[in-house]
């Protein structure tokens, strides 16, 4: 079904690679499947494997390897806070604590209403903007304590108003 419903996009992705090397399309197809199904469960992984004529286990292995593939339920918005050096010494720990407090969850968890998943992640290449996070892979720079509430409200409103979201970052704006 994934292929039938997204034929143009999938054919466009496949066209980037030599015809006998279509396995190269695996990562982009997993991003697509993840957006369509909300996460990469067993069925969606099998579907991607079939499109590319790959053994299921090869695709499961790839899903497990990369940080941006979710094989467990996540919210509509995945908040990734960088807690690496130097961010952890420039406000990231305070930001994580603040978000945990406001969302009522710990890092690694999803809110009951399934809107937010909060994660600690490694360097996201925006160290001068610490404390920094990505919401569905869109950068939010210098998220100082006075900006947190407004950011969460806006993200929640986006979800509630039905604005398209992509946990894979396929719609990421600047």
């Amino acid at each position, binding site marked *: 079904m994934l292929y039938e419903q997204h034929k143009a996009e999938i054919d466009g992705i496949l066209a*980037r690679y*030599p015809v006998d*090397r279509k*396995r*190269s*399309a*695996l*990562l*982009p197809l*997993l*991003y697509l499947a993840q957006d369509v199904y909300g996460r990469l469960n067993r069925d969606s992984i099998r579907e991607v494997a079939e499109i*590319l004529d*790959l053994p299921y286990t*090869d695709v499961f*292995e*790839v899903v497990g*390897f*990369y*940080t*941006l*593939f979710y094989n467990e339920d996540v919210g509509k918005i995945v908040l*990734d806070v960088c*807690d*690496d*050096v*130097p961010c*952890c*010494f*420039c406000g990231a720990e305070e930001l994580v604590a603040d978000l945990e407090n406001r969302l009522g969850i710990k890092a690694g968890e999803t809110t009951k209403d399934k809107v937010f998943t909060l994660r600690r*992640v*490694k*360097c*996201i*290449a*925006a*160290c*001068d903007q*610490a404390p920094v996070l*990505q919401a*569905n*892979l*869109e*950068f939010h720079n210098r998220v100082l304590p006075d900006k947190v509430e407004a950011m969460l409200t806006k993200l929640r409103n986006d979800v509630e108003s039905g604005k398209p979201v992509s946990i*894979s*970052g*396929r719609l*990421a*704006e*600047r």
Partner: protein
Amino acid sequence: MPKTEIKEHIVMRNRDVENIRDLDVYLANGGYAMAKQALTSMTPAAIIDEVKKSGLRGRGGAGFPTGVKWSFVPKELNPKYLVVNADESEPGTFNNHEIIDENPHQLLEGIVISAFAIGANVAYIYIRGEFAYGARFLEQKIAEARERGLIGKNLFGSGYDVEIYVHRGAGAYICGEETALLESLEGKIGQPRLKPPFPAVAGLYAKPTVVNNVETLTNVPRIIEKGADWFRSFGTEKSPGTKAVSISGHVKKPGNYEIPLGITIREFIFEWAGGMRDPNLPLKFIIPGGASSNWLTEEHLDIPMTWDDMAAAGTMLGSGAMVVLDTSVPVVRAALKVDEFFKHESCGKCSPCREGTHFLVKVWERIDEGHGRVGDIELLADVGKQMLGKCFCPLGDSSVSAVNSAIKFFRPELDAAIDAQH
């Protein structure tokens, strides 16, 4: 000490020309004229020769001469590929991020010229998955350039075709290592390959492949435009040109700066980045070339920022990423965070790295949490010794930098942290 001024930016031209990310602005400022000149009036050998003469060295970390790398590609084997390493993931590094978002066409023009030079008709930009916007943005820019006949078939009537595709990674630092990158681009888990064969001979799909960093390729149009001698008017004899360097941590003005290679660390921190953020908290240590690099302290401030000088000081310029930390930072916590990174990013292929990074984190963690044991510092040093030089790729070795640096410069602080727990 005065700040060394550079006449103009070579790669961060967005700092000189507003909105150069827009194709019309880029064209109005000479954009794609060098691609046209290269494809219509130069031979691939002449381009490679000019890049060799310029002394351009790879900006991704290793500093290998770019023209020499290109000349390793066997002429008779086809197809060939150019792969652009935009997997910028070394903690502290964010300069490719700016080039991609603000000066994308100069990168694309560099790709066209470089692909022609090595004889590749297809180039893939492997961009880290977290640069989701950057990936979409580059795709738009490629489409715009293609519409104007600047990328695609029979470019400038030369008969030469080049296609450029963007390929997003999915969150794995190891994919910055060129052979792991190629595995990932082939749709596999990102584990490094045994070398040789080197990618120049058997790279993507086992075909001859050149993997170059974003900043490296962004230099190329300017070298073709102004020549090797002009390029060499920046920097030093062995490290010519400029380098986009990211600085972060406890400085007044964190950000990217394009420096002439060869200025001292002192000048960079205090004249370019405004010095320390809090006058009451002096500099404690510097992670000078990304999390992989050995740390430096105040006594090293007069080292010139070149590949060779940094190597002579026992560390590296790396990808151009300086993290400056003040005296508020506990050494144990810093080392723990650095090694947590390597533990998380270890690909699992070889045991010294997979197991070693876990051991290091376990020991750092217990010291950080107040349960350090007598002999833990020796244990860390011993684990590090068993890893260094014994891992499949440089990632494992990199995790030892924090251990050895902490012990070398801050042994009393480490001992005190453990003593206080007994």
